[in-house]
């Protein structure tokens, strides 16, 4: 279980997180929604230790993440980045098997390649993609490779940062289905950041809306449409009229 308790983070005078409280139960899929620049990515990066909160605590299974042993802590996570964040200098299979080629999870090269090819197949890519370089792939293929990399070491917890941004609706649907299948199949805990409501309905068990630096609403996805929260309703309908200012 991941728990954020009164987490604050500011960049200069810009207070991004103003006391975030959030609980993600093990084996569930939490989707965090909210407008651009509301601190969703900062929230996620704070859990991973990529950003240090100014105050508040973040715990994983009761242990403060700042005190956890870094390697074993990070070994529990997989992450799909918004732009894929694939390493340009490495072929696709080495990107996917990155963790399996070095460090504590190191495997023989042939075995690591075989696992990479299998994970690529799992995300719907053919084996001949393995030897291409990221620059030779389309945006959708890069996202799938990023997804294959995120699941390559079979992590307990997977983070997805804007998984469908920049993709056409069909490819978005493919990625959403893949994420849902993989999370169910692996029994992993998932946290997704998005403002794509189709993704939310496809991926989420629970939804949290981040607005103005705090969790405005949280609950099961099935209750999202009848939450009665004016902020969430405006976000779902995409209306310019409501408590969320259209020009921020």
């Amino acid at each position, binding site marked *: 279980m991941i728990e954020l308790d009164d987490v604050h983070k500011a960049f200069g005078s810009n207070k991004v997180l103003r006391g975030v409280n959030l609980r993600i139960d093990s084996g569930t899929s939490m989707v965090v929604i909210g407008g651009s620049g509301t601190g969703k990515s900062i929230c996620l*990066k704070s859990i991973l*230790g*990529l950003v240090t909160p100014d105050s508040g605590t973040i715990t994983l299974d009761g242990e403060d993440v700042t005190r956890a042993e870094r390697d074993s802590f*990070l070994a529990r*996570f997989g992450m799909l980045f918004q732009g894929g*964040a694939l*390493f*340009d200098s490495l072929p696709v299979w080495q990107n996917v098997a990155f963790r399996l080629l070095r460090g504590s*999870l190191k495997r023989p090269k042939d075995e690591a390649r075989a696992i990479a090819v299998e994970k690529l197949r799992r995300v719907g890519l053919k084996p001949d993609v393995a030897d291409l370089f990221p620059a030779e792939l389309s945006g959708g293929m890069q996202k799938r490779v990023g997804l294959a990399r995120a699941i390559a070491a079979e992590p307990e917890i997977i983070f997805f940062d804007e998984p469908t941004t920049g993709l056409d609706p069909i490819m978005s649907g493919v990625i959403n289905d893949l994420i849902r299948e993989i999370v169910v199949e692996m029994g992993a805990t998932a946290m997704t950041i998005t403002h794509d409501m189709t993704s939310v309905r496809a991926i989420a068990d629970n939804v949290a809306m981040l607005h103005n630096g705090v969790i405005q609403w949280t609950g099961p996805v099935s209750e999202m449409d009848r939450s009665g929260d004016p902020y969430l309703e405006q976000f779902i309908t995409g209306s310019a009229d409501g408590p969320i200012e259209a020009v921020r």
Partner: protein
Amino acid sequence: MSWLFALLAAIGRPVTGGLATLGRLTIFAGQTLSHMLRPPFYLKEILQSLLNVGYFSLPVVGMTAIFTGGALALQIYSGGARFNAEAVVPQIVAIGMVRELGPVLVGLMIAARVTSSIAAEIATMKVTEQIDALVTLSTHPMKYLTVPRVLAGLIMVPLLVGIGDIIGILGGYIVGTKSLGFNPAAYLKNTVDFIEMRDVISSLIKGAAFGFIATLLGCYHGMHTGRGAQGVGRATKSAVESAAILILAANFLLTSILFSL
């Protein structure tokens, strides 16, 4: 009084900013050296960096050195003619290349070629979240990106300086013997007789220092880049500017120390 405070603030702001950057750079250098001594070591990345910094810089170093050596021979010959000292061309080319021009020019060419490439590559990795991805994949960016490049600078730039010194002397030799009428055997003898071991050692020490500065600043500015394409451009520009200035400052400092011993 307010104008005085405004003046002091205008002076103080860049000074404190500069000192803060110097402090960050010193900590970055210390962390790099510390990671250099502790496993894990990424051998493939180290070998790749040795190739990039060393082998692939050979053409630009060679071209710079040969033209500089040739031009130096011409300058000394025509300058020396003013006081009947044309004969000292081999000695001055040798000492000029080995003690000063070889290390400095190679250092500056490495700053232009390697520092810019390192800064742009790492800065692009930073803005496209590849550095964050490294962290999530349990890989320390400093060990994976900085250590191999700085190690390559420390090892390969002295070698490049050595090669640059030889090629520069060769440039002087070609001009001296083909165009200025020097006897080839006498030119070589004068060159070899005049160079001392301390000249060569000082040249290599300077090479190691310049290699460290050039690669470290490329990594530092890359890792501390701003956002977007503009951030990458600024990081690259700052890396090359600061590497070039620090190389020239270090050259003065090292020359003062090495030749006062």
